[in-house]
């Protein structure tokens, strides 16, 4: 009677837990990051099993791919540091283990006591989706019903890039060696393909899994390829354009949200006749901003001119 897919689910669950533990206990830091990337991809698989393909796409592209790239870059930067500066005392470890085990048991009891059949907002979404301007429910929620959240999420990205530019300062280090001619050739081959895929993901978001975030992540991969292959080097003179790229999405999104309110409507209340156009416009600019911001987050520091005083010294 056991459904074979349930067995698969259980195995996947066990593998996920094992990977999570392995990420924390494996000694080598490079292996730790690789294990985390595997963990992220398996998570995406689990979310596909839970019929959440949009989320799985976003997790694989952003939560795993980009985060993994960021991690590896950081590891490369700090590789001189000792792997474990101060060992933690065994007592602390066991006390925390006991505490976390208690937390898990408590949460698991609460979870098991809850039915998984709460009504949720699916009926309301289904009821209003025709008025939203898009056919895919997740996009409708992101860009219309809860557009305010989405705007603020892009604001979080902006805050992140401002903070990263602020934090990493000083003279540019010697640029890393690029990855060789074969890689460059591959980059030339892959770049247009990824641009197509990113745009496709953005477009398809109106009626199928995909959308601004997944498309933006795919386009950010273009940025990563360009940076890694050395085909593009950020210059101080490009900063104004980059800044505009970072804020473009929010500026357009927020302006649309406020401007629609001028005709006696509320903020974020798109006129039904133009809802689809407005949402596509917003998605397009937000995708550009997400792509530029994510690529810039990967690059890290602000491309700065070396101050005159420091070149003399």
């Amino acid at each position: 009677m056991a459904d074979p897919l349930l067995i698969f689910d259980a195995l996947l669950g066990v593998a996920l837990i094992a990977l999570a533990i392995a990420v924390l206990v494996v000694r080598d830091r490079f292996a730790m990051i690789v294990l985390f990337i595997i963990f992220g991809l398996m998570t995406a698989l689990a979310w596909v099993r839970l019929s959440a393909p949009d989320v799985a796409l976003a997790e694989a592209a952003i939560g795993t791919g980009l985060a993994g790239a960021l991690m590896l870059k950081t590891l490369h930067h700090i590789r001189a540091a000792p792997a474990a500066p101060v060992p933690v005392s065994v007592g602390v470890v066991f006390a925390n283990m006991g505490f976390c085990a208690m937390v898990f048991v408590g949460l698991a009891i609460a979870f098991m006591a809850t039915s998984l059949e709460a009504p949720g907002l699916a009926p309301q979404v289904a009821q209003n989706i025709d008025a939203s301007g898009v056919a895919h429910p997740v996009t409708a929620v992101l860009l219309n019903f809860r557009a305010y959240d989405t705007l603020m999420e892009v604001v979080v990205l902006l805050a992140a890039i401002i903070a990263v530019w602020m934090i990493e300062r000083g003279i540019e280090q010697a640029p890393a060696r690029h990855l060789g001619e074969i890689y460059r050739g591959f980059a030339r081959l892959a770049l247009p393909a990824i641009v197509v895929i990113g745009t496709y993901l953005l477009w398809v978001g109106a009626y199928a899994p995909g959308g601004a975030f997944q498309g933006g992540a795919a386009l950010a991969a273009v940025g990563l390829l360009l940076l890694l292959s050395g085909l593009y080097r950020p210059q101080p003179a490009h900063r104004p354009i980059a800044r505009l790229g970072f804020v473009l999405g929010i500026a357009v999104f927020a302006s649309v949200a406020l401007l629609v309110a001028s005709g006696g409507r509320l903020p974020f209340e798109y006129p039904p006749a133009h809802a689809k156009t407005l949402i596509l416009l917003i998605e397009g600019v937000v995708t550009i901003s997400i792509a530029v911001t994510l690529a810039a987050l990967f690059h890290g520091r602000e491309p700065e001119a070396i101050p005159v005083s420091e070149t003399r010294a």
Partner: protein
Amino acid sequence: MILDILALTLIALGAAFFVAGTIGLLRFPDTLCRLHALTKADGLGMGLTCLGVTLLAGSAGEIARILLIWFFVAASSAICGHLIARHVRRATDTEER
């Protein structure tokens, strides 16, 4: 029905190659050997799996997309193999010096 069985056989065969590649990854002594096991076996496994899924696909569009996926995965795994091998060679070069 026959198509189904054929497709399942191909996918199972593909999975077997993946398993073999993974065993190679875990058991072989150094990076180049591991790379050897991984790229060869996984390339074949990928191809077989894609072929199997193609048999199950409903429309021409789906088939085209599966083929595209196969092409990109093959290309990027070749590049990855190249990059890793290049890195290994450089690392051993500097060690010998």
